[in-house]
């Protein structure tokens, strides 16, 4: 199987060379070494290509809170569910989101009961649905990190139809990263930062943390050899006692990021202290739509209040798994009561969720 443009990044000989270098450096380090990434796509690459099976056991690769579906609070999903129950309303959102259990049911269950819930691939599709259904309210349930925010910002900025609005549940990665770094009991020797988010925001927000907290950081791409090389670059820093933010993904990530996308985010949204499912409220951890665009903010347009919600159901360990304190198989519900068919916690739903990835690619 030949994948165009990925010959180097999926090449077995290169992979073996990098793994051998990793093993070599590891000999000179005090073990175990713990490395954390904060991106569901990184976990996906690591698991899909069986990278852990290539690495020594004393090098632990932990999975942080990098799945946008997983960290979306139940209260926001409850809100979408309440709005979806209204007459003449269409809820649109990204695929994985509809299966996430909220306080009571999921959007998928509401859909099976007859509500009009549609999966879209981009916010633009939601706009198209709104134009085609002028007599219905079309609400886009917007989740994701810095990567998806510019897309929805662009639509809000460019005169969407008046029957269109947005539930804004966007989260920001650097704030979460800072929280993780500051939790010293996690004992993490280095971070692999997400290439996609960095493509938008650039290197600066990450440099602040590696400088302030003296933790090495590498921004990495999503092919298997990207991740392996990222790990090698981290281990070199650990060995040389350096604490820099390095860019492995330089073929895509520019130091200054994507200025146009940043401008759109700043024009339409402002950062706010925001709750992350399983983690709690994070200062500057999310985005809210600026007052200027109130008419497209579903929160303001419909005034739905969710009094009480439940992020982590009894027995579920998602809050510990998301911050790398437990592996999925250490949760007592994993693979028994909680499966991708019947997910109890949010990490079992999305293809980017740690529990779901472990369920699919590992057998203990």
């Amino acid at each position, binding site marked *: *199987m*030949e994948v165009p443009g990925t010959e180097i990044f999926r090449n077995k000989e290169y992979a073996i060379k990098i793994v051998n270098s990793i093993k070599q450096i590891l000999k000179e380090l005090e073990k175990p070494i713990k490395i954390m990434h904060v991106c569901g796509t990184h976990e996906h690459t690591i698991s*899909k290509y069986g990278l852990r099976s290539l690495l020594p056991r004393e090098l632990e690769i932990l999975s942080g809170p990098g799945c946008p579906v997983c960290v979306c609070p139940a209260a926001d999903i409850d809100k979408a569910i309440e709005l979806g129950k209204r007459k003449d309303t269409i809820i649109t959102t990204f695929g994985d989101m509809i299966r996430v259990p909220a306080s009571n049911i999921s959007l998928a269950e509401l859909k099976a009961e007859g509500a009009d819930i549609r999966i879209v*691939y981009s916010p633009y599709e939601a706009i198209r649905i709104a134009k085609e259904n002028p007599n219905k309210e079309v609400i886009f349930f917007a989740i994701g990190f810095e990567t998806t925010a510019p897309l929805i910002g662009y639509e809000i900025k460019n005169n969407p139809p008046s029957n269109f609005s947005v539930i804004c549940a966007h989260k920001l990665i650097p704030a979460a990263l800072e929280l993780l770094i500051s939790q010293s009991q996690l004992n993490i020797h280095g971070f692999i930062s997400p290439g996609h988010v960095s493509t938008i925001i650039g290197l600066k927000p990450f440099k602040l943390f590696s400088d302030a907290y003296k933790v090495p950081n590498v921004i990495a791409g999503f092919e*298997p050899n990207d991740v*392996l090389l990222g790990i090698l670059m981290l281990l070199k820093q650990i060995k040389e006692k350096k604490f820099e933010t390095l860019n492995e993904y330089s073929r895509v990530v520019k130091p200054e990021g994507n200025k146009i996308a940043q401008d759109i985010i700043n024009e339409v949204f402002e950062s706010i202290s925001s709750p992350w499912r399983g983690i709690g409220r994070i200062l500057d951890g999310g985005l809210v739509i600026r007052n200027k665009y109130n008419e497209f903010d579903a929160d303001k347009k419909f005034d739905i209040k969710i009094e009480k919600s439940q992020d982590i159901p009894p027995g579920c360990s998602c809050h510990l798994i998301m911050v790398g304190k437990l592996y999925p198989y250490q949760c007592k519900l994993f693979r028994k009561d909680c499966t991708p*068919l019947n997910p109890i916690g949010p990490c079992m739903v999305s293809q*980017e969720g740690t529990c779901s990835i472990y369920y699919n690619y*590992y057998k203990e």
Partner: protein
Amino acid sequence: MSDRKGSFNLIRLAHGAGGVLQEELINFITKNITFKNVNEGIGVEELDDGATIPLEDYDQEIVVSADGHTVYPLFFPGGNLGILSVCGTVNDLIMMGAKPLAITSIIIIEEGFKFDTLEKIINSFNFKAKEANLAIIAGDTKIMPRGTLNEMIMATTGIGIKDKNIKILDSNLKPGDKIIITGSIGDHGTALISSREGLNISADLKSDVELLTEIYNQLHQEINNNYIHAMKDPTRGGIAGSLNDWAKKSNVSIMIEEEKVPIKRQVHAICEMLGLDPYTIACEGRALLSVESTKAEEILSKIKSTSIGEKAEIIGEVGIENPKKVFLKTLVGGTRFIDTPLGEPIPRIC
């Protein structure tokens, strides 16, 4: 009375997607059937591609397969509902090692459907049946009120014949067997996804829907000599579903080598873009074979000599350790597990 409450009491789309949920639905439907086979032939409990009716005093047995056909859109790149119905039925018979003889056809149509459209589908059905040398021997038609059915669905029964001593079954894989795929995977499902409303992906990609007759004819001798232990067309659930099915029913493990699995560039690109796994995506004109290792190369070259098998490859082998599991040796040399898909593949976010 079932004890299903709330959403567990609802049939979801994923119940038809060839994964674990579908297994659950089939078990639900078949659990109370008590009379399951004729003359100790293969019956419903085997959940194989078809069933057999051994004829007393003869060396041959009748093979029967049943199939419902729905597709959206009705016309897709490389085929339509009529072609899909014949190919699906014929291929199920061939996967049991049988020679297809006849087909029945049930057509259920929504009120308001156009004669012109029906004609195109029926013409395709008839043409393909003729190509497969298949008699269309019975049928039925029903019309349902507008809105109670989407456009049109078909249901078929395939009838074939085979020698009693031919044993090609999901439960018949032997340790050491080589696994062959007869062509690139995922073309059908990906072509459908890319032609569906809203996606606007233009790709030079057609469904792989095709009769497997040519391959069957080439392998006549190997089938009769039982060098081919199992055959399966990886439709819903893709090769991930089929391989897991085999591993479970035969109590073996299967190791697949990622670099050997033929996947078209377009299929790869679309799957990567949408976060789909080509191993779980349906094919409609491919077969997986589990064959005697000493005969594998010979069988492969026979398949490669056909017009539909040029891209055939040996992609893995059957083992005994870690039974009931399917493993993948990845491109970079790592090992991971391939699971039975759970339901309808859905694209991920970023």
